[in-house]
């Protein structure tokens, strides 16, 4: 339970007392302290999972009988592509929360996540190109999934460009939220593009409803790398949001 100020009237005490403790993290000053404690753990987890994932990916996982060793690039390509879409959805969710509930932390979270999302989009496109050259024989094809992923990168860049161009923080938050929400239609289009259009990009090899169509060591490496990308994203976003809070509210020292 959060400790309450003595000055708060009794009626408010009741309302606040009923709320679960995690909700007090929506307050930037509490979040600042919590993020400072959680950050090293996520960073360590990212390093640990990353090393384990790389060992499995390069040492344990067997060579693919069709694609040879080139397939190993999927251990970074697939997690990066997943993260690029997922981070956009999370940032858009934060943006929507900020618009609807006028929370102070949500726009900062959206802003902290977007650069990492753009980074993962670039990694997904880059590694995809490196995989496509030996496998498809072309660095780039104008395939539905590649094109929509490229548009996702432009959406990230548009958001980052807009929020950095606006000096007034309140307008930057709201305008950025509108842009993020306007672009959110693109994410399902990317995800389902392989099913909707018969494209060159291969379909998903992993689904929740069927057994994976790959060796279990490959799957283990992929899941480890995905976990590493998750932990890295959380750690970087927390570090960035701490800077943003310190910038907005200079009276709260970095704990």
């Amino acid at each position: 339970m959060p400790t309450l100020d003595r000055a708060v009237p009794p009626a408010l005490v009741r309302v606040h007392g009923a709320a679960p403790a995690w909700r007090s993290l929506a307050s930037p000053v509490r979040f600042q302290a919590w993020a400072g404690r959680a950050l090293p753990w996520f960073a360590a987890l990212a390093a640990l999972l990353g090393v384990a994932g790389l060992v499995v990916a390069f040492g344990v996982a067997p060579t693919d009988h069709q694609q040879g060793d080139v397939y190993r690039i999927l251990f970074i390509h697939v997690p990066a592509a997943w993260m690029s879409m997922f981070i956009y959805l999370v940032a858009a969710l934060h943006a929507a929360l900020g618009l609807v509930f006028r929370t102070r932390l949500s726009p900062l979270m959206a802003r902290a996540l977007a650069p990492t999302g753009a980074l993962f989009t670039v990694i997904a496109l880059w590694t995809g190109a490196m995989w496509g050259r030996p496998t498809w024989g072309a660095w780039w094809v104008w395939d539905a999934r590649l094109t929509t992923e490229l548009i996702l990168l432009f959406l990230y860049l548009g958001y980052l460009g807009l929020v950095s161009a606006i000096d007034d923080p309140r307008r930057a938050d709201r305008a950025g939220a509108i842009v993020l929400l306007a672009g959110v239609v693109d994410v399902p289009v990317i995800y389902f593009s392989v099913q909707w259009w018969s494209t060159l990009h291969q379909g998903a090899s992993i689904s929740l409803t069927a057994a994976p169509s790959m060796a279990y060591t490959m799957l283990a490496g992929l899941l480890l790398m995905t976990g590493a990308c998750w932990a890295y994203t959380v750690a970087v976003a927390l570090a960035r949001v701490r800077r943003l809070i310190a910038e907005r509210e200079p009276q709260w020292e970095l704990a």
Partner: protein
Amino acid sequence: MPASSSLLIGRELRLAARRPMDALSGLVFFVLVGSLFPLAVGPDAPLLAAIGPGVVWVAALLAVVISLHRLFEPDLDDGALEQWLLSPHSLTGLVALRIAAHWLVCGLPLVAVGPLLALQYGLSPLAVAVLLAALLLGTPTLSLLGALGAALTLGLRGHVLVALIVLPLCVPVLVFGSSAVSAGQQGLPVGPQLSLLGACLSLAAFLCPWATGAALRLAVE
């Protein structure tokens, strides 16, 4: 509201009529870009017929984007925008009227001249008719999405930012519009693409005036 809506649209049309060059610069740009491609890729008729639909659509999209700075900036400068925010009418309705007026001034001439450009590229009569229908359905969507971008970037430095925001959002219109014309060129059915363009227009007409109003409020405050 009907009286004030005709006043508002009438005001925009009068402003455009008094400075015709300003209003028609997008149209001139459209024709110019459309005429540059044959100079660059050469006068090969089958190639021009193949790239024609895409070129006309990209030129229309760029023409809409370069006309966006005229949408709200003059109103912000002369204080009309603040009067909108203070007026008893709904801001969403006013914004929708303003976008409609902008489309009449900047979008409708593109629709009228588009078939002419298509004839330069040697498209078949059926494809020209499809282009006309697709532009009629598509350019209002471009104006609506462009208005959102213009409102979000109102009063900011740099005109590239509005293009960076608007162009990715306009990709579906571009894809469905040019694929409708290409299908018409090959004698394939064009119903699905035109329906999708209509769906984009409905969605944009429903959401964009409201979001644009919210963005304008932010810009003026």
